[in-house]
């Protein structure tokens, strides 16, 4: 143990090198932390194996020297996807980061403050989307390239570019790095995963690599914070000296491989191919100089895991089990905190009503604002859980395998394999599902996926399904033993999928027509997810949801409150006229007489929502709906489950949503003017189909607005789904009548 301690402290001294006393103290502190890690076990292998290799070849980075900065430094982190870019970014910035969109697009822009040196203000660090080359094939890559080349409007030319290079795959990763070096920009290479590279038999001579490329190469282990100070010093040095790569890579001026118009889209594919081949030849030469390959012939661990995980039979079974688990988690685990949030806010609203004088402001506070905030927060448990699992799946490398397994199936409807997970998640709730479509790179594939996600029958539809089944189909069986209710619910799920497939097929041929996108995708090696990265991902998801979608949802819920609260009803029962309402009001009032309930019923009947319900009655009558269902439909545009509390109010059976049996009774007793029942099985079927297909969920609208960065797509979604729902309900009801069902 003593020997080990000694070794670590010696390494710590080497690491800090000739960088003075202050650095030594930080490194010494770090070495105590390192010691703890060594004692805790697993770290030992890494340390013994890699640090020695690293220290042999590490290029000494000199101290920062005098610092004269006119402005805040802008540093960008670029690199291939899965190269460890985000881990490095998180390690450098900690929690001091902001997530926003690049103007006009939905590509995420992550910036943070990086304290390079105590003597200067922190640099602004930008984490770019992963890219393989300066010739973009997706919107993400295009934005990344524009930022790198200083062509992104509103962003200054970056002062220094850190290119993250995955040491396990130097050739492909250096492709982007050499492109950037040739543009004569100050570049520092951060070499990640060199411990893994060493294990897989690649021995990298960092000094040689740096000499060949002409730029500093700094080995880093973001998780253990190794090499981060060196990286900061190298960035400062490169910035100060305007150091530009002068290794064995010809720059643009010297007639480089990178023909200047390559990134601008050289029209001649043959030229681009020639350049590409020349570049790979150059990189292969550099790598053969600096990297020693010792292949011990062992099968890579990832490939061995893949033998099971993407196995012809086990693969789909495992995928099904994984997704079932995730689905179950968001479906049922989230319900407890959701109920908790709901009851807290209901209690809060009651408290407000009890202690403030009855007035319109009290109503606004209790029913509009508090209920609205509660409604927004109620989404958080589902979003947190789904994104917890998604980041685990992404970081471990499984997500790419899921896309690999599902691509053939998803392609049948014109979608990418990556659309599978968001769509499946939408069965619990479309809001987190739509947020999860960010993994799909091609914008048109992504929008198609967003457009069909609401057809996945989400958990908010279940209350209305079960209400209709309880009122109209209870006790009936199919084939003598299967409950008709179960068959109907199952049919709703399947019909939703069918609608999604048909709509996707139509959209991919019309509004979202695009040349077939490619599936060329890296299957990254399996890695243990890092808790810190998962935490960062969760935090940013939640803050985006609350800031960007939550505010819209809150505003809309206040609007819907106002629609039901204005104009104020007088205390006397309103002459409802029209004959229709009075009769069933009389029936239901006889069932459960209560003054406050009657007042509430009066209020909603007289409100804008109630008037609108009557106004649209001629339009919805062919679907078998009367004006009361109309009021329910209008209120359910806030959220689907709202229809139950609205029906409770209009049927005058008290505001207790749990009190389903009295509502069921009221529904069964409701009569039309001619004395026939309002709620026939056909009406019920027509209604649940309408609920399946219409986009009655302002939260979905808000999140689509956020994720597509325009009101065009959410409005389009609401309209086409409404038309589809109307047509299908119409065909069901009128067709049913023609066939003699009542």
């Amino acid at each position, binding site marked *: 143990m003593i020997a080990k301690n000694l070794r670590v402290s010696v390494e710590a001294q080497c690491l800090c090198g000739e960088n003075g006393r202050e650095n030594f103290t930080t490194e010494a502190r770090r070495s105590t932390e390192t010691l703890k890690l060594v004692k805790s076990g697993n770290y030992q292998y890494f340390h013994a194996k890699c640090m020695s290799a690293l220290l042999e070849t590490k290029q000494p980075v000199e101290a920062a020297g005098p610092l004269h900065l006119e402005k805040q430094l802008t540093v960008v982190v670029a690199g291939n996807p899965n190269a460890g870019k985000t881990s490095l970014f998180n390690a450098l910035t900690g929690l001091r980061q902001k997530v926003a969109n690049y103007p006009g697009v939905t590509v995420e822009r992550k910036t943070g403050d990086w304290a390079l040196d105590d003597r200067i203000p922190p640099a602004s660090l930008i984490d770019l989307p992963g890219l*393989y*080359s300066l*010739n973009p*094939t997706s919107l993400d890559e295009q934005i990344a390239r524009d930022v790198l080349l200083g062509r992104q409007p509103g962003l200054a030319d970056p002062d220094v570019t850190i290119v993250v290079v995955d040491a*396990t*795959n130097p*050739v*492909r990763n250096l*492709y982007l790095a050499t492109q950037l070096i040739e543009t004569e920009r100050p570049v520092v290479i951060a070499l990640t995963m060199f411990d893994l590279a060493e294990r*897989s038999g*690649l021995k990298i001579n960092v000094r040689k690599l740096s000499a060949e490329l002409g730029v500093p190469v700094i080995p880093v282990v973001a998780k253990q914070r190794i090499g981060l100070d060196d990286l900061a010093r190298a960035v400062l040095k490169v910035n100060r000296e305007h150091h530009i790569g002068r290794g064995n890579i010809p720059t643009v001026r010297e007639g480089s491989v990178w023909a200047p118009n390559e990134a601008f889209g050289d029209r001649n*594919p*043959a030229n*681009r*191919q020639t350049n*590409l*081949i020349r570049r*790979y030849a150059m990189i292969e030469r550099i790598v053969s100089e600096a990297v020693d390959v010792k292949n011990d012939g062992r099968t890579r661990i*990832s*490939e061995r895991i*893949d033998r099971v995980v*993407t*196995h*012809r*039979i086990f*693969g*789909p079974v495992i995928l099904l089990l994984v997704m079932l688990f995730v689905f179950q988690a968001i479906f049922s685990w989230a319900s407890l905190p959701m109920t908790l949030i709901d009851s807290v806010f209901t209690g809060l609203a009651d408290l407000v009503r009890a202690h403030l004088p009855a007035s319109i402001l009290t109503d606004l506070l209790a029913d509009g604002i508090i209920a609205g905030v509660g409604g927004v927060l109620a989404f958080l448990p589902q979003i947190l859980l789904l994104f917890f699992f998604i980041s685990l799946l992404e970081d471990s490398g499984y997500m*790419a395998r899921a*896309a*690999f*397994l599902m*691509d*053939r*199936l998803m*392609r049948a409807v014109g979608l990418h*394999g990556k659309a599978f997970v968001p769509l499946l998640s939408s069965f619990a709730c479309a809001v987190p599902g739509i947020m999860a479509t960010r993994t799909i790179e091609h914008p048109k594939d992504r929008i198609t996926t967003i457009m069909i996600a609401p057809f996945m029958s989400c958990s908010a539809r279940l209350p209305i399904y079960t209400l209709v089944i309880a009122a109209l189909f209870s006790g009936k069986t199919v084939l003598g033993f299967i409950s008709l209710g179960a068959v109907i619910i199952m049919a709703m799920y399947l019909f939703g999928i069918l609608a999604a497939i048909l709509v996707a097929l139509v959209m991919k041929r019309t509004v979202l027509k695009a040349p077939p996108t*490619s*599936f*060329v*995708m*890296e*299957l*990254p*090696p399996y890695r243990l997810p890092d808790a810190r990265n998962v935490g960062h991902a969760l935090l940013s998801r939640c803050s985006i949801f609350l800031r960007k979608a939550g505010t819209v949802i809150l505003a809309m819920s206040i609007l819907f409150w106002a629609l039901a609260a204005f104009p104020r009803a007088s205390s006397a029962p309103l002459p409802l006229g029209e004959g229709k309402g009075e009769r069933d009001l009389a029936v239901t009032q006889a069932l459960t007489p209560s003054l406050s309930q009657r007042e509430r019923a009066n209020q909603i009947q007289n409100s804008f929502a109630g008037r609108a319900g009557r106004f649209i009655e001629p339009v919805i009558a062919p679907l078998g709906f009367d004006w009361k269902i109309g009021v329910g439909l209008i209120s359910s545009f806030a959220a689907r489950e709202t229809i139950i509390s609205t029906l409770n109010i209009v049927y005058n059976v008290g505001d207790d949503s749990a009190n389903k049996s009295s509502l069921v009774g009221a529904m069964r007793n409701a009569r039309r003017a001619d004395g026939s029942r309002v709620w026939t099985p056909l009406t019920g079927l027509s209604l649940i189909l309408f609920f399946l297909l219409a986009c009655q969920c302002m939260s979905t609208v808000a999140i689509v607005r956020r994720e597509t960065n325009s009101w065009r797509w959410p409005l389009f979604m609401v309209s086409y789904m409404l038309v589809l729902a109307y047509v299908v309900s119409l065909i069901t009801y009128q067709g049913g009548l023609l066939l003699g069902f009542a």
Partner: protein
Amino acid sequence: MTLDMVPKNSSARVVAVESDEGHNLRLMEMGLVPGAPVRMVKTAPLGDPLQVCVRNYDLALRRAEAKSVVVCLDEK
């Protein structure tokens, strides 16, 4: 022969990548340049896409895309 015809676990070398209007440049940028060794790892359960190993990493691509990569099989 083309990459999609390489039997499972067999190695081959890229001879050329047919590029129609630059569509397949990405395949080359990902390392499938002439001369590069490539090994067929497996096909997905539904027969498409394919998984190949090139330059020490795994790449998934659709059968149609693999058809544009001309290869010659390594002799055992």
